């Protein structure tokens, strides 16, 4: 059981550690460091959050980057303390804010299971008892006595999750861990989450994977700008949340979007959907060819960038993530204004509204130039996709494939003859 009342958290965003040596000397000379406190800016990461979560409930927490979700989880798991407000948590809390916390490169997989388990609050006996299960779950049996510095990042992830999945706590707090790993691993994680839920524990789940949230949690809390914006049945909350994301911008114009990350060396200015005739379309017909035109502005020359987008359903399920990087298309340099086109032969999407997130990074993917989450809406309208005249809509799924039914195998044959033929053979 978790009861939170009027919880607020204030952060100082001072310039304490970013001073350079000359500045520091200046400060020393003028004794400015004694007065520094007054110059500090503060922000409220959380403002008057009140929540009550019953034992056995699985609650999803959603919201934009920087809305305060992580801060809330950190307070609930006692990592940090609220500036004001009260917090009552009944039962042992296990928090997975990161997979494999405290792993040490030099230790073997087995040793790290003990270390990690114990950091997460397991006793040695508990780990002893579950060791085989954990190793099996992780799927890295062969390398269990190898130092994990030799592991791939995927193996490390699986090992970390395997430990966490065997935690026994009344309250489990999970943050975004599912955002990483391949599809099979994500599936495994979701199954584990489901198991945990069935064991009637209280689970708090923060994720950008809205489909997963909807699937796992009956209740969902939407946090925006440090406050509870909406709290209720998952489907309703997620719909409202997606609605708000979509409503932010007119697809054609991204200049005003402020909810974006990146250093801004490249900025997406607009995305257009062009028909085969080259006309800009507001709505695209299912099955039509379409050219996506990404307008960018590079304030200075940027060499070998990668540009791409992710497409989501209105419930936040990722449909595709594609980019120049995926295609090994090298962009030698971007400078000033321009556009890049992506030609799609046949837009195999069923009629619905889809959202697009755009991203531009350097070729390693480490430096983000621009990232606009859910900034663009793509509306796909119904079309005679199967040539049948039937109105196929989103109730039939998300995508369709070019396809043809073949009835050649149903041609009538006398049953008896076939049996005889089989016996002769």
């Amino acid at each position, binding site marked *: 059981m978790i009861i939170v009342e009027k919880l607020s958290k204030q952060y100082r965003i001072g310039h304490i*550690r970013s001073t350079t040596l000359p500045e520091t000397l200046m400060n020393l000379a003028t004794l400015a460091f004694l007065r520094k406190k007054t110059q500090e800016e503060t922000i409220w990461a959380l403002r008057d959050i009140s929540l009550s979560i019953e034992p056995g409930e699985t609650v999803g927490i959603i919201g934009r980057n920087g809305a305060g979700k992580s801060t809330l989880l*950190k307070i609930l798991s006692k990592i940090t303390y609220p500036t004001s407000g009260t917090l009552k948590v009944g039962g042992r809390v296990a928090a997975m*804010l990161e997979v494999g916390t*405290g792993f040490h490169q030099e*230790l073997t997989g087995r040793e790290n299971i003990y270390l990690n388990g114990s950091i997460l609050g397991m006793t040695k006996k508990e780990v002893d008892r579950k060791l085989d299960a954990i190793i099996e779950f992780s799927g890295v049996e062969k390398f269990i006595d190898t130092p994990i510095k030799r592991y791939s990042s995927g193996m490390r992830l699986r090992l970390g999750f395997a430990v966490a999945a065997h935690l026994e706590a009344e309250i489990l707090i999970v943050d975004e861990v599912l955002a990483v790993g391949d599809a099979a691993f994500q599936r495994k994680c979701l199954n584990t989450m489901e198991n945990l839920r069935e064991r009637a524990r209280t689970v708090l789940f923060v994720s950008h994977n809205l489909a997963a949230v909807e699937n796992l949690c009956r209740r969902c809390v939407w946090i925006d700008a440090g406050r509870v914006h909406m709290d209720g049945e998952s489907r309703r909350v997620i719909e409202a949340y997606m609605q708000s994301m979509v409503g932010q911008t007119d697809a054609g114009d991204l200049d005003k979007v402020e909810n974006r990350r990146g250093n801004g060396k490249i900025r997406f200015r607009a995305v257009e959907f062009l028909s085969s005739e080259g006309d800009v379309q507001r709505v695209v017909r299912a099955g039509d060819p379409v050219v996506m035109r990404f307008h960018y502005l590079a304030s200075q020359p940027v060499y070998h960038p990668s540009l791409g987008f992710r497409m989501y359903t209105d419930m936040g399920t990722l449909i595709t993530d594609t980019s120049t990087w995926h295609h090994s298309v090298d962009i030698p340099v971007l400078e000033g204004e321009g556009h890049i086109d992506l030609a799609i032969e046949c837009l195999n999407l069923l009629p619905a509204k889809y959202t697009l997130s755009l991203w531009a990074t350097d070729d390693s993917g480490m430096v983000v130039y621009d990232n606009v989450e859910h900034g663009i809406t793509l509306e796909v309208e119904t079309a005679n996709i199967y040539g049948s005249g039937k109105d196929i809509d989103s109730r039939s799924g998300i995508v369709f494939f070019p396809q043809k039914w073949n009835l050649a195998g149903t041609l009538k044959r006398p049953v008896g003859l076939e049996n005889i033929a089989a016996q002769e053979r």
Partner: protein
Amino acid sequence: MGRETILELWRYRELLYFFAWREIKVRYRQAAFGAGWAVVQPLLSMVVFTLLFGRVAHMPSDGIPYPIFCYCALVPWTYFSSVVTTASGSLVNNESLLTKVYFPRMLLPAGAALAGLLDFVIGSVLLVGLMLYYHVVASWALVLSPVIILVMVLVTVGVSMMMAAANVRYRDVKYALPFLIQIWMFATPVIYPVTVIPKWLRPILALNPCWGIVDGFRACLFPGIPFDARLLGISVAVALAVFLAGVYYFHREEKSFADVI
């Protein structure tokens, strides 16, 4: 610091052991000489100090062979200085732990103090070897050595807590600490005997808790060195104060660790 904090520390006692275990396991990994370093390090310091201060500077040593005179002080001193150095970085170097999981934060510096005891034991075994070699027969005061070891651990933990917590807020600790430790060593009778200090100055220097530990160690081992109960008393009192102050400061600061680090 209430009853709850203490109960919680007790519940997490295994983690203390695991932190110490990690420290030890990791220390000599991928070193060709391996755990041999634990033995060689104190011996090498002894050799260097003996050559420098014993032979070249002719430092008096109360009639005890200089190598063992010096080494006997180096064992507790090395424990103190190396644990304080490791522990001062224990929070900062485990930033991801501090910002991603909850556990009693004190366990990190305390784990370093526990791990250091292994080196201390190895050093002590070598000390016994040296005593046999130099035909030194321990005095009756040896029975007091557990008390002195306890005081040594308390001081070390206290200073470690202070440095670790201060380091989170002020990275200056990292740069200032090596100098502090160096000066501290010269303020402690490691390379020189207490007898070279004028009598009137000794009670003042005994305010340094390491003073009583090092001198107490010598008094335990060498019958020729008298137990100065008054000086030892001062050091023990200061040691207790340092321990409590360290724990108090750490406890006061720990709520903000995750935000400030």
